[in-house]
C-alpha cells in the first residue's frame, strides 16, 4: 500500500512538472501584457508536431531537435506578436481574448490542413523506457521532462530577477506608457515576452512529445489545465505557476487514486476555487 502511494505521489509530481512547464509561458505573457493567450495549447501542439516531423523526416531525436525547435518557436512567438497581438494591444480585455481565441482555431485549422486529424506518436526516443527506483516506476521521458521543467524555470527566474531586461519586462507589465518614459521600448518587450512564452511552451511540447501523442486538438486538455495552474499560482507569477503546476499534478493523480478518477479534474478545479476564495489573487499573485 505504501509503495503504491509513493508511486502515486511520484507520478503526480512528474506530471505536475510538465503542467508547470506548459503553464510558464502562459503566465509570462499574461504577466507582461495582461493577455490570456487562449491559443497557448495550440502552440504546444505545433511544437509537438515539429518534434514529430523532425524525428520522422530527419531521424532527429526530440532531445536533439529541442534547441532548434525552441528557437523556431521563439520566432513564431515574435511573429505572432507583431501580426496578431500588436494591433489589439490597447483593446479591451475581451477583444484580446477574442483574437487569441481566433488564433486557437486558426492554428488548429492549419494543423488539420497540413497534418490531418490523425494521432501521431514518436514510437521510441532516447528518453524512452522506465526506471525502477525501489519498486517505484518512473518513466524516463517524464523524468527528462521534469528536469527540463526545473531547468527552464531556473533560467526564467534568473532572467527575470537578475537582468535588466527582466526588470524592463516587469515595468512594461505595470504601466507601458510610464515604461516608455524610462527609455524602455515596450513593443520590443512585448514581443520578447511572446517569444519567451512561446519558446517555453515549445520546450514543453518537445518534451511532451516523447511520451504523449499529438493530434490537432491535443492542446485543449493541457491548455485548460494550464489556465487553472496559472490562475491558482496567481496570474503573472512564475514561481506561483511552478508551485501550482506541481500541486495540480499531485491533486489530480492522488485524488484519482484515492477517490475516483471520474472526479479527479473536479478536485483540481475545486481546489482552485477553494484557494481563490481564501486568497483572491491566487497563491503568489499580486
Amino acid at each position, binding site marked *: 500500500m505504501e509503495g503504491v502511494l509513493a508511486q502515486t505521489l511520484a507520478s503526480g509530481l512528474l506530471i505536475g512538472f510538465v503542467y508547470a512547464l506548459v503553464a510558464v509561458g502562459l503566465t509570462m505573457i499574461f504577466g507582461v501584457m495582461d493577455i490570456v493567450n487562449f491559443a497557448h495549447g495550440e502552440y504546444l501542439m505545433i511544437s509537438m508536431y515539429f518534434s514529430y516531423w523532425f524525428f520522422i523526416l530527419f531521424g532527429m531525436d526530440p532531445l536533439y531537435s529541442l534547441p532548434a525547435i525552441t528557437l523556431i518557436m521563439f520566432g513564431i512567438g515574435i511573429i505572432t506578436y507583431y501580426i496578431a497581438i500588436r494591433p489589439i494591444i490597447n483593446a479591451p480585455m*475581451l477583444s484580446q481574448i477574442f483574437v487569441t481565441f481566433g488564433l486557437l*482555431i486558426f492554428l488548429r485549422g492549419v*494543423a488539420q490542413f497540413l497534418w490531418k486529424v490523425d494521432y501521431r506518436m514518436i514510437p521510441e526516443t532516447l528518453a524512452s523506457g522506465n526506471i525502477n527506483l525501489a519498486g517505484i516506476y518512473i518513466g524516463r521521458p517524464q523524468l527528462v521532462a521534469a528536469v527540463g521543467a526545473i531547468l527552464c524555470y531556473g533560467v526564467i527566474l534568473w532572467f527575470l530577477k537578475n537582468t535588466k531586461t527582466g526588470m524592463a519586462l516587469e515595468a512594461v507589465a505595470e504601466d507601458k506608457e510610464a515604461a516608455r518614459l524610462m527609455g524602455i521600448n515596450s513593443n520590443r518587450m512585448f514581443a520578447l515576452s511572446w517569444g519567451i512564452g512561446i519558446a517555453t511552451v515549445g520546450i514543453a511540447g518537445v518534451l511532451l512529445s516523447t511520451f504523449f501523442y499529438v493530434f490537432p486538438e491535443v492542446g485543449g486538455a493541457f491548455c485548460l489545465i494550464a489556465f487553472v495552474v496559472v490562475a491558482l499560482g496567481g496570474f503573472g507569477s512564475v514561481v506561483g505557476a511552478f508551485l501550482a503546476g506541481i500541486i495540480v499534478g499531485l491533486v489530480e493523480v492522488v485524488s484519482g487514486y484515492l477517490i475516483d478518477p471520474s472526479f479527479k479534474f473536479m478536485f483540481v478545479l475545486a481546489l482552485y476555487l477553494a484557494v481563490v476564495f481564501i486568497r483572491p489573487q491566487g497563491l503568489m499573485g499580486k
Partner: protein
Amino acid sequence: MKKGLVILLVFFAALVIYPFIFKNPFPRHLLIMIMLYGTMGIGWNIIGGYAGQVSFGNAAFFGVGAYTTAILLSKYGINPWIGMLLGCFFSSLVAVIVGYPCFRLRGHYFAIATIAVGEIVQILFTNWEYAGAAVGIYIPILEESFFNFQFHTTKLPYYYIVLAMLAFALLVCYAVEKSRLGYYFRAIKDDPEGARSLGINIQNYKLVAFILSAILTSVCGTFYAMYVLYIHPANTIDLWLSIHLCIIALIGGLGKIFGPVIGAFIFIPLTEFTRVYLGSEGQGIDLIIYALIIILLATLRPQGLWGIFAKSSS
C-alpha cells in the same frame, strides 16, 4: 431614434414573416439557432457586457435549465413549461451559490472560476446516475402540442417560441439598460471601488446581473431540451458553448442591447456555412477561414459591429 424604432419593427416583422418565405426546415432551424444563441448572448451580455464580469460558465445555466426540464418530464411527467420555470429557479440558485463567493474575484480570476464551475457542473452531471450520467436523458415523445412543448411535424411553433424568447430577452435588457440597474452595472464594470463609494452594494448588483443572465440562459436550455429531445452532459454543459456566447456578444458589441443579436446573426451562419461548404472534407480550411474572420473582426472592430448598424439607423 424614431428611425431606430421603425427599423426594430421592420426587423421583428421580418422575423415573423421569415418562416412563410423559407419553408424548408433547414433555414428555419438556422434562424431558430440564431435566435436561441441571440437570447443566450443577451443573457451573457448582461453579466459580461454590462456588469463586466466575464463568465465562461454560462453553459452551466443552460445545462441546469435543460436537465431540470428533462428530468421532471421524463421521471415525473411534469409539464415542460413548469420545468422551464423551475429551471429558472434552480439556475438562479446556482447563480447565487456560485456568484456569492466568486464575485470577490477580479478579472481573469473570476473568468477562470466560472470555467471551473461550468466544468464541475459538467463532471457532476456526467457521473450522476439519477440524471442519466453520461448517457443523458431521452425525453419522452409526447403528443404534438403547445402544452407539451413538442412539435414533430413542423418547426413553426418552435420558431415562434424562440422568437418570443428573444423578444422577451430584448425587453429585459432594455429595461435593465434604461434603469438604475444598467447604470449601476456599467459603473461596477468601470470601477468597482468607485461604485462602492457611491453607495452601490456591488456584490448584490453583480448577483442581480448574474441571476438575470442565468434565467435567460436557463430558458434556452429548456427550449433546447424540448427541441432536440435528447440531452447529455457533453452537449448541454460545454465550455465551448460558454465561449461562443461570449464571442457572440463581442462580435455584436459588448453592453449594447442589440449586440448579441447582431453577433448571433453573424456567428451562427458563419459557423454553419463554413462547416457545410468547406468542412465536409475535413481539411481544416473551414476553421482557417472562420478563424481569420474572427481575428479580423476583433482587430478591426474591437467595439463590435453594433456601431455600424447604429450609425445607419440613426
